[in-house]
């Protein structure tokens, strides 16, 4: 492509230029032609016109001169006539003749100029007339000279003057003609010019078109040129790049040579002199460049090798590539071994250069020796490492070999390295059998992913009989052909492992300790991040913040802003070693927060333990006490409560004000003593009170007692007394504190209420229904104790979660209650409904609920009261009755059907027998008809017999239902049937397949199963298609609640769309061609149904039928 452009460009360009030149020259020629044409045309017109005008002007001059001459002649004549002196007359005559001569000359000139014929005629006439006129003038002059003036005047007046007038007219006409012709000529030239202009317009248009075309052409050309220019530029750039690349590659090659780390040089094969040497060679051989260029290759060889060298040089072809190993000599004389490779370079001039690369193999060999040495060392070192060093290699087939194993294996496995080399698997023998598989898996994993092999396992210590933990660590390297090589170590980590276990145990202990603390404990690091937390802490966070706590989170995420500031501040202090405890909280929630430093062995603070104790209750209690004290006094007064103190040592009693009020005595008149205060108590109750005091003193606890007091006015009051003993340091009872409250009124009301309640309670408890009271949201407010019998739940249990009982209702009943019954109750109507309820022991009970609305003063229903009575037995009886009724109805239907069919089928042969007896000819026993009648009588009797037998069968089957149900094996039954039908089956060459795998047995009456299967198989045989071989397939499988026996054939089939309802009917038949009584399928159905199952059929005419028998199956 590039090449092609290179060649095509110049020709292309020159052609373009040619086009341009052509276009421009065409344009130029056109323009020049037009301009010259215009010029000449215009010039011609101008010249013509000028000539014509000057000619006309001259003519006019001549005519004017003639005109003047005529005038002067005429004047001279007149003067002649008037003059009297002959002298003068002669003078005039001369003048006239001179003028006449001049005129004739002028005339002559004019004639030459006039070309137009008409004008020539005028001129000719004028000439001839002027000639005549001249003669006349002469005559006149003669007359005048003769002084015949009168005559001359007359003559002049009659002849000369008219003539003169005529001459003037003629001259005028001539000059007019010339002027008009000159004007015509002017018009003509104008016409010519305009014509020319018209023509010129056409030319101009053409010129424009040509110019436009030229412009287009030029534009095209310019575009083309621009394109060419671009291409040219690209090419130039490319060439520059190529050149640059060439230059670079040259430089690179040069550098490759010069900076090559291998010593290289070029020498002339003829002279053996160095031509070019690289830097590596300078370094290797110790010569400078200048020195090298003075040398021949022989100089760098040791003297003793020169002979061999020259021989080899001579013997070799100059063009060959060579590679040899020889010795070279440095400038300092040292000799070393090199591997020389040389190749011929293209020659120039006389020289034949050869490029030589000399690799110093001296060091390599030394390195090799070094390597061997270090390997030996490594071996020694490895044997001194605790544990074993190994190198193992494994192929894709899983076969592995130890390429190296150090002596340490003796201590670890008690096995020698050579044993391992011989039989790598011997190592496995020692590994704990629980770990062996893990080790193997780790190796395969490492093999597949080339990840480091790290595995820990146990090996048996034969002498100590203990397990030793070993950690194997290896680095895999992928070698060729799928081999992986591991280098690694096996180290005894038993002690580490024990230490770790201990650590785990102690950590677990610590955690258990922490978790058993009732406080929430967090361990925080310096940055307030949670390092550890206990179970209470986790629970707290979950309860309060609904969040999961995790180590590493900042504690600040779990506290609010106010708390955070204090926490951060105190945390800082704790880090200094302080222990800080403070309370935090508001309202009812208070926490005691303790920050304690966790100190390391060197007393440095390792962490901060934060414990949070919920002290809300404590706080609350304190608060309550304070408040209570305040209220006490007020309350005592209001509650008619007084307190007293009985000092047993001093035997005094002190009363508070309220006590005086209660005892209705005056503080001023009455001094209470232990004795007189007991006198208020009626005698019969004093023991009771004493008992309370004794009890309190004995058990050191508060005792209370209610008793009556008899006042001075004889009235009785009921008081409630509380007694608290006080002991001294030695445990001796020294004092009683107590309070006394007047509870007379309360007691009275209480007793009244109790009486009423007891009455109601006993009523409620003695009716069989459960009485309840519920809020409008169905939450129970009250439920009578009978609920225990009905639901199994106690009233406390039901009332503790007041709307729980609704959950015991089945969903549909709950909907009935909440969506239908309750709205009506809330609308103020009494309702009753029957619902089911789950009792505590998960039984279902039917309840009759009667609910009445309780309406407040505003007419709103605020409560619902009701009763629930147990309907279960009634309901159950009802269900049972319905079931029985259904069953009875069904059986009745069955019986009717049965009776109908039986009557029909029994009657048919009987009717025949009757008919036959009527046609029997008794009178003529020998009648030919009679034997046939007898035959048919037989037939009918047989049919009657068969029918009765069938009926017997059917009835027997029903009675068989009471037979024992046993586990019946389908396969066994089928075998029996196959045996009994073996002849028929063989005859048909039937293809039989069976599969009783899924449900091999069924619990049923054996004879039923046998009969069902027999009937189905027999049917398949009877109604097989004459066109195909019988294929019979039996299969059992389990579906929910049923075991299904499925029998499929490829027989004639039944048109189910017509006969669906009749398939299993008694004496229903669908095919007339074979013997059949229409009993088989009916029996199948009867038996299946008697067993609690059902039957189904699927059939297609001429395709086959499938009968599915479902046996009830209870898991």
């Amino acid at each position, binding site marked *: 492509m590039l090449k092609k452009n290179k060649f095509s460009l110049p020709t292309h360009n020159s052609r373009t230029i040619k086009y341009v030149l052509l276009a421009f020259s065409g344009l130029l020629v056109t323009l020049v032609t037009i301009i010259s044409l215009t010029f000449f045309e215009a010039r011609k017109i101008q010249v013509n016109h000028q000539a014509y005008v000057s000619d006309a002007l001259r003519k006019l001059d001549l005519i004017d001169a003639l005109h003047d001459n005529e005038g002067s002649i005429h004047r001279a004549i007149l003067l002649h006539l008037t003059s009297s002196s002959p002298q003068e007359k002669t003078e005039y005559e001369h003048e006239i003749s001179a003028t006449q001569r001049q005129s004739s000359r002028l005339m002559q000139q004019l004639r030459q100029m006039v070309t137009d014929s008409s004008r020539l005629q005028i001129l000719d006439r004028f000439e001839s007339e002027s000639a005549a006129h001249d003669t006349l003038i002469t005559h006149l002059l003669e007359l005048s000279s003769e002084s015949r003036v009168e005559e001359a005047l007359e003559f002049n007046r009659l002849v000369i003057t008219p003539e003169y007038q005529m001459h003037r007219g003629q001259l005028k006409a001539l000059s007019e003609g010339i002027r008009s012709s000159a004007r015509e000529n002017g018009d003509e030239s104008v016409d010519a010019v305009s014509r020319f202009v018209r023509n010129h317009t056409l030319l101009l248009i053409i010129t424009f078109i040509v110019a436009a075309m030229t412009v287009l052409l030029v534009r095209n050309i310019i575009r083309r040129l621009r394109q060419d220019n671009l291409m040219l530029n690209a090419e130039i750039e490319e060439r520059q790049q190529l050149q640059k690349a060439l230059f670079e590659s040259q430089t690179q090659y040069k550098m490759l040579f010069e900076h090559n780390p291998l010593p290289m040089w070029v020498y002339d094969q003829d002279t053996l002199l160095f031509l070019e040497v690289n830097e590596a060679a300078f370094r290797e051989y110790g010569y400078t460049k200048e020195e090298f260029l003075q040398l021949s290759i022989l100089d760098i060889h040791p003297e003793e090798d020169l002979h061999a060298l020259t021989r080899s040089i001579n013997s070799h072809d100059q063009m060959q590539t060579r590679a040899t190993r020889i010795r070279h000599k440095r400038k300092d004389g040292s000799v070393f071994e090199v591997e020389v490779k040389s190749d011929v370079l293209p020659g120039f001039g006389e020289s034949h250069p050869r490029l030589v690369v000399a690799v110093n193999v001296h060091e390599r060999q030394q390195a090799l020796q070094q390597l061997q040495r270090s390997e030996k060392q490594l071996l020694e070192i490895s044997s001194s490492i605790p544990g074993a060093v190994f190198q193992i290699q494994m192929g894709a087939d899983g076969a592995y070999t130890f390429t190296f194993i150090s002596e340490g294996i003796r201590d670890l496995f008690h096995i020698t390295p050579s044993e391992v080399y011989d039989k790598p698997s011997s190592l496995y023998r020692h590994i704990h059998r629980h770990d062996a598989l893990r080790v193997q898996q780790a190796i395969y994993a490492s093999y597949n992913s080339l990840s480091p092999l790290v595995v820990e396992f146990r090996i048996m210590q034969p002498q100590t009989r203990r397990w030793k933990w070993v950690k194997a660590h290896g680095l895999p390297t992928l070698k060729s052909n799928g081999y992986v090589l591991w280098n690694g170590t096996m180290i005894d980590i038993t002690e580490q492992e024990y230490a770790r276990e201990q650590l785990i145990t102690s950590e677990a202990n610590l955690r258990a300790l922490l978790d058993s603390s009732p406080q929430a404990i967090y361990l925080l690091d310096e940055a307030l991040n949670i390092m550890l937390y206990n179970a209470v802490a986790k629970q707290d966070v979950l309860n309060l913040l609904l969040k999961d706590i995790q180590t590493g989170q900042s504690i600040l995420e779990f506290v609010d802003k106010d708390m955070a500031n204090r926490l951060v501040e105190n945390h800082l202090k704790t880090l200094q070693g302080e222990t800080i405890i403070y309370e935090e909280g508001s309202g009812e929630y208070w926490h005691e927060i303790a920050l304690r430093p966790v100190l390391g062995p060197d007393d440095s603070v390792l962490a901060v333990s934060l414990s949070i104790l919920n002290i809300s209750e404590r706080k609350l209690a304190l608060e309550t006490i304070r408040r209570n004290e305040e209220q006490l006094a007020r309350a005592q007064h209001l509650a008619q409560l007084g307190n007293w103190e009985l000092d047993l040592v001093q035997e005094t009693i002190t009363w508070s004000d309220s006590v005086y009020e209660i005892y209705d005595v005056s503080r001023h008149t009455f001094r209470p003593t232990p004795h007189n205060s007991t006198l208020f108590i009626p005698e019969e109750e004093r023991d009771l009170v004493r008992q309370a005091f004794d009890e309190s003193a004995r058990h050191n606890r508060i005792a209370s007692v209610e008793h009556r007091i008899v006042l001075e006015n004889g009235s009785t009051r009921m008081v409630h007394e509380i007694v608290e003993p006080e002991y001294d340091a030695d445990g001796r009872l020294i004092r009683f504190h107590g309070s006394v409250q007047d509870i007379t009124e309360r007691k009275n009301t209480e007793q009244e209420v109790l009486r009423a309640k007891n009455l109601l309670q006993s009523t409620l408890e003695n009716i069989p229904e459960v009485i309840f009271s519920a809020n409008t949201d169905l939450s129970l407010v009250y439920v009578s104790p009978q609920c225990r019998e009905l639901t199994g739940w106690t009233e406390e249990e039901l009332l503790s979660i007041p709307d729980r009982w609704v959950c015991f209702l089945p969903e549909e009943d709950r909907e009935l209650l909440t969506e239908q019954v309750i709205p009506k109750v809330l609308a103020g109507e009494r309702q009753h409904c029957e619902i089911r309820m789950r009792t505590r022991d998960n039984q279902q009970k039917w309840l009759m609920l009667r609910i009445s609305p309780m309406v407040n003063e505003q007419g709103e229903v605020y409560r619902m009261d009701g009763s629930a009575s147990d309907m279960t037995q009634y309901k159950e009886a009802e269900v049972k009755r319905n079931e029985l009724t259904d069953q009875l109805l069904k059986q009745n239907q069955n019986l009717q059907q049965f009776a109908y069919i039986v009557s*029909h089928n029994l009657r048919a042969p009987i*009717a025949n027998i009757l008919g036959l007896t009527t046609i029997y000819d008794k009178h003529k026993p020998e009648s030919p008809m009679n034997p046939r009648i007898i035959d*048919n009588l037989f037939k009918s009797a047989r*049919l009657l017999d068969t029918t009765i037998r069938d009926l017997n069968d059917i009835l027997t089957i029903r009675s068989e239902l009471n037979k024992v149900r046993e586990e019946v094996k389908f396969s066994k039954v089928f075998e029996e049937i196959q045996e009994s039908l073996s002849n028929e089956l063989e005859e048909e060459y039937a293809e039989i397949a069976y599969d009783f795998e899924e449900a091999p047995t069924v619990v049923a009456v054996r004879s039923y199963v046998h009969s069902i299967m027999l009937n189905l198989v027999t049917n398949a045989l009877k109604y097989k298609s004459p066109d195909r071989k019988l294929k019979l397939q039996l299969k059992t499988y389990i579906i929910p609640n049923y075991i299904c026996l499925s029998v499929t054939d490829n027989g004639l089939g039944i048109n189910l769309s017509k006969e669906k309802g009749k398939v299993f009917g008694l004496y229903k038949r*669908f*095919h007339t061609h074979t013997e059949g009584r229409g009993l088989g399928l009916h029996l199948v159905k009867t038996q299946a149904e008697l067993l609690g199952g059902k039957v189904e059929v699927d059939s297609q005419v001429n395709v086959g039928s499938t009968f599915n028998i479902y046996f009830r199956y209870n898991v």
Partner: protein
Amino acid sequence: MNTLKRVVLIDDDEVNNFVCESIIRNENFAEEVLSFQSAEEALSFLKSSVSQDGENFPDLIFLDINMPGMDGWNFIEEYRSLPEHVTQRCNLFMLSSAVDRKDIMCARSHEEVKEFFSKPLSPEILDFIKEEFLLRV
């Protein structure tokens, strides 16, 4: 009219057909008695006789109810679709062993069925038919 031309018996019970044929012959009730053991066969015979201008169409049919395949009721459905000018001349009787009221009611409800008789056929029945249905025409 004394003797019918053709009587058709439709019953799967061979013996009954024999009885009927014998009685009809003995009583000289018809010139020809044709018996079919299935309703399908009988129907195809009737259809073929219709296509031959109805010449062979029977004057009287005795039809059983219970038969395998097409039963008496199904046969009546098909019979109904035969051309009226042919069936008009024919008397269809049910002859069944059933003594069930339901069957009798059902038979009466069919317009095509002239009467229901319980088996066996007897000379009395034939006399009754003659008197009630044939002489009147």
